[in-house]
């Protein structure tokens, strides 16, 4: 049998095993198409060596194409988010460099490949663990921190046709997993057997738990207004009516401040306050472990900005030009815009103090979030939305 009999790209929507049914999903299409090429070539080669074997038809059967197509789809989805994150790191370094009147990144075109060079450097470093550290806590904490960050990054759809799973609980799960890492940071701070780390871990736990509450209140008001937890429904509601930033501007501000605190960025980077606690809860982490923690910071920053875009800035929609633009690009551009504001704040402000950060969280943001909820309830009762 010839090559073209093995490698034939069929319509992924026609696959009876597809979990997405008839919904168009670009990563799934790309994934299953990739497997049909790779698996088809494999099957062709195997069939040439052993003609008439049973492995070759199995490799390109619908079930196997679906299963391995899903694996490749995850890889494709993650690769896109990873590149977006590298771009965000690059933007942060470039913007900070320009704000501070200095050169920023150097390697590659416009310094874009500097992050890869740094990643390679951290990757090549030696694995060092403090002698009296709690080994399990030390290693598991960093795994879960990066794991939860990547997980929630994968849960955010870039558009109705670019997602991993479309599920009813939507934002609830994202917020739930977003709140996991503070506990692991506490564990990491304890496990390192270092006073700075311990204080940093305690600060992280206190700060993140107290900023979780205004964030969730804002989330509740958004869900209340949209009438659904599903991300697609929330964005569709905003496309039908108006972006939530207009009725809920207070909520947007509260959410952004809380998001900066959740992502541990200046001015709320107390857990790793380098002036007094050498590197905070990351003090004893070195090499690639530190690199992964840094990466998870940026993943969390990405998730925070993406949530802000979904909840307040209309997601992947642009007013009056629904058909003209590619929704994934619009979504990512909006994410980067929000991220730029976070970077700008980092270049402008210093760090604030522990008691002040809690004061802001409990005495300013919480009442504002409740006020926002009231406004939403009034609007809902008044029948505006």
């Amino acid at each position, binding site marked *: 049998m010839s090559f073209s009999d093995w490698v034939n790209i069929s319509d992924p929507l026609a696959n009876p095993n597809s979990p997405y049914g008839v919904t168009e999903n670009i990563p799934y299409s790309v994934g299953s198409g990739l497997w049909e090429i790779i698996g088809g070539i494999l099957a062709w080669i195997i069939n040439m060596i052993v003609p008439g074997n049973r492995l070759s038809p199995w490799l390109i059967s619908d079930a196997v194409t679906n299963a391995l197509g899903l694996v490749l789809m995850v890889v494709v989805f993650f690769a896109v988010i990873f590149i977006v994150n590298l771009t965000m790191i690059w933007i942060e370094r470039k913007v900070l*460099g*320009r*704000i501070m*009147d*200095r*050169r920023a990144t150097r390697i590659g075109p416009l310094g874009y490949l500097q992050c890869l060079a740094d990643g390679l450097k951290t990757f090549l470093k030696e694995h060092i663990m403090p002698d009296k550290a709690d080994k399990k806590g030390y290693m598991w904490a960093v795994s879960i921190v990066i794991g939860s960050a990547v997980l929630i990054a994968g849960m955010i759809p870039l558009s109705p046709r670019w997602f991993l799973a479309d599920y009813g609980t939507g934002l609830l799960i994202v917020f739930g997993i977003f709140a996991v890492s503070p506990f692991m940071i506490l564990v990491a701070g304890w496990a390192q057997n270092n006073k700075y780390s311990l204080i940093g871990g305690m600060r992280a736990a206190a700060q993140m738990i107290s900023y979780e509450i205004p964030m969730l209140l804002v989330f509740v008001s958004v869900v209340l207004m949209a009438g659904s937890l599903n991300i697609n429904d929330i964005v569709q509601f905003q496309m039908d009516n108006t972006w939530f930033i207009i009725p809920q501007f207070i909520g947007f501000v509260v959410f952004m401040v809380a998001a900066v605190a959740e992502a541990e960025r200046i001015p709320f980077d107390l857990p790793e306050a380098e002036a007094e606690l050498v590197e905070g809860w990351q003090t004893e982490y070195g090499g690639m472990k530190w690199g992964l923690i840094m990466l998870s910071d940026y993943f969390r920053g990405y998730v925070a900005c993406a949530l802000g875009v979904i909840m307040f800035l209309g997601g992947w929609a642009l007013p009056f030009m629904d058909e003209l633009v590619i929704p994934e690009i619009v979504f990512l551009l909006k994410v980067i815009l929000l991220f730029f504001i976070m970077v*700008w704040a980092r270049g*402008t*402000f210093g760090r604030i103090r522990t008691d002040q950060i809690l004061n802001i969280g409990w005495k300013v943001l919480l009442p504002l979030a409740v006020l926002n909820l009231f406004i939403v309830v009034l609007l809902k009762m008044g029948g505006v939305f």
Partner: protein
Amino acid sequence: MAIKYMDKYPKNVALRGWILKPFLTTFKNMIKTTIHRPVTIMYPYEKEWIPDNYRGRPGLVFEKCVGCGICERMCPTTCIELVEVEDEALGKVKRPQVNVGRCMMCGYCAEYCPVEAMTVTPDYELAGYTREDLIYDPYQLKWENTTIGMEVHLEEHLPSNLAKGVTDKPTAFYEVDRPKLIGEKCISCNRCAKTCPVDAIEMIVVGENAKGKPIKHPKIDDSKCVFCEQCIVICPKDALEINEVL
């Protein structure tokens, strides 16, 4: 008395700009550095302009040097040492050798050099692989494009001149200070004449002693002398002493 620059701000702290003005300031700077370039100088590829009188490592103009050793004596870190070198044109001469690893770049050797042979150079990239690499012999000390700007001139005014109202005649200690002979201590040993690097000392017969041998005293040629004090140091009977002119 009070803090003057605060007058621009309202007394009540609550009325200040809070966060808007910092945001605007950084944004302004970001735009400015994006349009123009940042002030950073990318060091290995581009270097800052430095003036001629930049005090890097010491340099030496081999031909001008007389081997007087003033630099050796003035050096605060004793990194200069006079070594004998066999030069093709000049024969066996004494020239300074500098341990750049110890040098503190104070520029005293150039400042006090009576013949402007020692200079400062704008050479500041001095890393070497071993400590021996950092010991610069007289030939290594040379700097290709020695300019006049690298010479540091010692311009002192004598207080006596200033008291007379003469302010336009700067001088230096090596032009006015001279060794002074205390005649009765001299034993005619001739060592000062032998050691003088500029041959300014001539032994002159001033009389005869009881045994009929001639008594020789050094006579110092003021125009040649650079006041390096080598004769004073070497004199076995302390017959020469410093005569400072103020």
